[in-house]
């Protein structure tokens, strides 16, 4: 794709050469009409288009074809409506999660998901990747907080689903379809979110363990106790025999003190961080979440009862003393394995083998790296009926295959 054609639509200052993928120019429309023109251009010239937010999670997606150019929403940004009294917010897709947070925080409201490095993540990108955050245990998956979306379809129509109210069942929930669709259906241009409440306070309890098994047992005890932590995290920073358990309590002050008392009886002398220290620790924990720009991350999700065999299978599959950092969230049963920066991730064969082994134990696996993956790592067979329905849905939106990401069907993507 010549940059000239893109510049004629969005202006020279809004075209970048080869930013995220070598040789693939990126157009940054500043209004939806320009995005529509870019769709038209791709369609008339039979070109493949990659949809992007800020580009930070590109390595989570899977490319069916090499794109001719990319369309980023990063300059389609701004808050459209913020209704503190109703606890809702509507913003353009390119708005950074940090901007959303800072807008709502002043009114005592929060955004879910609480993603790592919110300044690098756009609202549309968070929706398209189906991302959840460190608040998932307390707030649930991020996708459930999306009240409505506006999308630009490959045929140039802008369509809306849901709305901006906290309760609404009018029409099909198409926004659920866009959540986690990795830009294979349409461009999310705008979304409305349900907001949560900024907690009065936060306390983090931390303990160290020599063995994973004891650490996991302690985490399970916390989860079984009558407390409602915001996060329960086990981390291991490249030291095989050293696991730290962090329990984040947040909410009304009286309530978290009450929960602290309860947990103090359960855990033996935990370190307690309060106020600034607690906030700093909470942020650090959030930042331990996978960052595709620094390292390859295997993200594994499973049912809690299968967590132990899944970890065992993972350790087995990665071989003796892997240069890897583990982040476990036993409450939501996810395991993130950060493969040390600089160390090469295991090859495709190992990953596929690992993925299949984990799948057999009921887990799903995603590899998140710093570049989009090709088809070769996404070869796991899926239920044919399910796959063909997904294909039909994809063809409904994009019959001429303008968009070059593909539905992330089972297995590694």
């Amino acid at each position, binding site marked *: 794709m010549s940059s000239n054609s893109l510049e004629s639509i969005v202006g020279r200052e809004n075209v970048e050469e080869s930013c995220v993928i070598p040789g693939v120019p990126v157009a940054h429309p500043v209004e939806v009409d320009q995005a529509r023109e870019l769709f038209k251009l791709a369609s008339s010239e039979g070109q493949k288009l990659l949809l992007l937010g800020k580009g930070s999670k590109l390595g989570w997606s899977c490319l069916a074809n090499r794109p001719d150019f990319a369309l980023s929403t990063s300059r389609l940004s701004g808050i459209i409506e913020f209704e503190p009294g*109703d*606890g809702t917010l509507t913003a353009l897709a390119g708005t950074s999660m940090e901007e959303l947070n800072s807008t709502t925080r002043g009114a005592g409201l929060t955004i879910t998901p609480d993603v790592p490095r919110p300044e690098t993540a756009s609202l549309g990108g968070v929706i398209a990747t189906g991302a959840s955050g460190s608040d998932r245990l307390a707030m649930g998956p991020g*996708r459930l907080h999306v009240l409505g979306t506006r999308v630009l379809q490959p045929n140039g129509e802008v369509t809306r689903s849901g709305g901006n109210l*906290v*309760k609404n*069942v*009018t029409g099909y929930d*198409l926004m659920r379809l866009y959540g986690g669709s990795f830009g294979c259906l349409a461009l999310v241009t705008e979304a409305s979110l349900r907001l949560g409440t900024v907690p009065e306070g936060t306390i983090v309890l931390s303990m160290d363990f020599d063995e994973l098994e004891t650490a996991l047992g302690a985490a399970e005890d916390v989860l079984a106790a009558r407390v409602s932590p915001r996060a329960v995290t086990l981390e291991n920073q490249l030291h095989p025999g050293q696991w730290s358990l962090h329990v984040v309590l947040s909410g009304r002050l009286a309530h978290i003190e009450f929960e602290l008392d309860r947990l103090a009886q359960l855990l033996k002398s935990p370190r307690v961080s309060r106020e600034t220290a607690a906030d700093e620790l909470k942020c650090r924990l959030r930042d331990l979440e996978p960052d595709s720009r620094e390292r390859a991350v295997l993200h594994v999700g499973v049912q*809690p009862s299968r967590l132990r065999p899944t970890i065992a299978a993972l350790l087995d599959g990665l071989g003796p003393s892997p240069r890897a950092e583990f982040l476990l969230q036993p409450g939501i049963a996810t395991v993130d394995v950060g493969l040390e920066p600089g160390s090469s991730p295991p090859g495709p064969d190992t990953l596929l083998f690992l993925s299949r082994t984990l799948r057999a134990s009921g887990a799903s696996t995603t590899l998140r790296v710093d570049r989009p993956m090709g088809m070769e790592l996404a070869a796991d067979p899926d239920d044919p009926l399910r796959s063909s329905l997904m294909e039909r849905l994809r063809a409904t939106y994009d019959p001429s295959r303008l968009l070059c990401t593909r539905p992330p069907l089972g297995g590694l993507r």
Partner: protein
Amino acid sequence: MNPPIVRALRAIVGDAGLVVDETRRIPYECDGLAFERQKPRLVLLPGNTEEALGCMRILHEEGIPIVARGAGTGLTGGATPVEGGVVVGTARMRRVLEINVQDRYARAEAGLVNLDLSRACADDGLMYAPDPSSQMACTIGGNVANNSGGPHCFKYGNTSRHVLGLKIVTPEGELLDLSRPETDPEGLDLVGLFVGSEGMFGLATEVTVRLLPAPENVETVLAIFPDLDDACDAVSEIIAERWDPSALEILDRLTIQAVEASIYAAGYPAEADAVLLIEIEGSRAECDANYNGISAVLDRHRVIEARRAQTEQERKKLWAGRKGAYGAMGRIAPDLYVSDVVVPRTKLRELVRKSTEICSEYGLKLTNVFHAGDGNLHPNLSYDRRDSDELKRVLAAGDEIMEAVIAAGGTLSGEHGVGLEKRDQMPMYFSQPDLDIMLAVRAAWDQQQRMNPGKLLPIRACNEHMPFKGLNR
């Protein structure tokens, strides 16, 4: 119905699963939208997923339209049969298949009654959160299809937030197994999309839902107001101040009177203009903090009294009044048109007033009992369906209320769905391209559009067979 087809179907479901007899088909003619009726050609009640697959395959081969049915408590005509169509009901699929305490989920057949699921997991200290007021009768499958809500959905969200997996029999009679509970959906979120599809994508035969730990303490407060406006404003302020009750339900004067005169009498004071039922859950500290904060708001809004239920029995009684309110309204008139709209929570008072004005202009009896915390209003119009003029006025008033709601930034439905009732009002809320993409998505699931045709999506010429002309407005 062609005898060989009936024979083939009987061979699958047996006599217990087939309703052929004309009089026995009468109860299936409508759902809670009693003035829309259509006799089904046949009613099939498969006993399990296998039988449902067999039936759906035959109906597919014969090109027969299908309407899925749970308990028929829907209020929008969603389960009203279509002309020439067959009803496939889930009344014989009521088993709880699994309660997984460690992973906190339950698997149940779609015909299981909502309340039975909560009962089944109560001994394990778990609960299923969505609690429609019809929970003693409505089914989990119907809840999934309508993305149903209920009083506690203020805190926990509608059904969609609780469904983890589904087994779906496709319109072609194939099994789409999405029942493995996944941390995040693999690929497109088909389960999320199916919830709220109002029986137009397929027949759900099995549902996997998230269970939550039952709260440690639950407290119910009855706040009594001299004026409905005050009750509405108190709710808006509780939300704006970010207090954290689990339910906020308002009942107005006429509803209170109907409830108190019925078997659901809950001790609501007959002289009040409105009562607000507030539920608070959590640790002792959480309950106390919320109670104190909410009490201060109530005081600012002229509350006459805020009674904290002292015993579990008293608490249950307060709720029985709320949940029995619709039943109690039978005392006002034989029929009830239950409207269901949502308004921004900052505009509760304005829209409640507006609906009162509209109904008094039409000379109709309006009662309000609603999920105030979500801004989910239920202006209920009592009428007698034998009085055609009154029915016309009811529908006209319903339309006007809807227009006012939309103009105030509200939406057509918060929990009952669109069905037949609001189908023709969809263009008030959605543009034609919005509706076109919904129609296209529907066609991806149901290529022949035989599942519940004529519901939810307004019919454009030639788009599909038109079994209903729409409501008799």
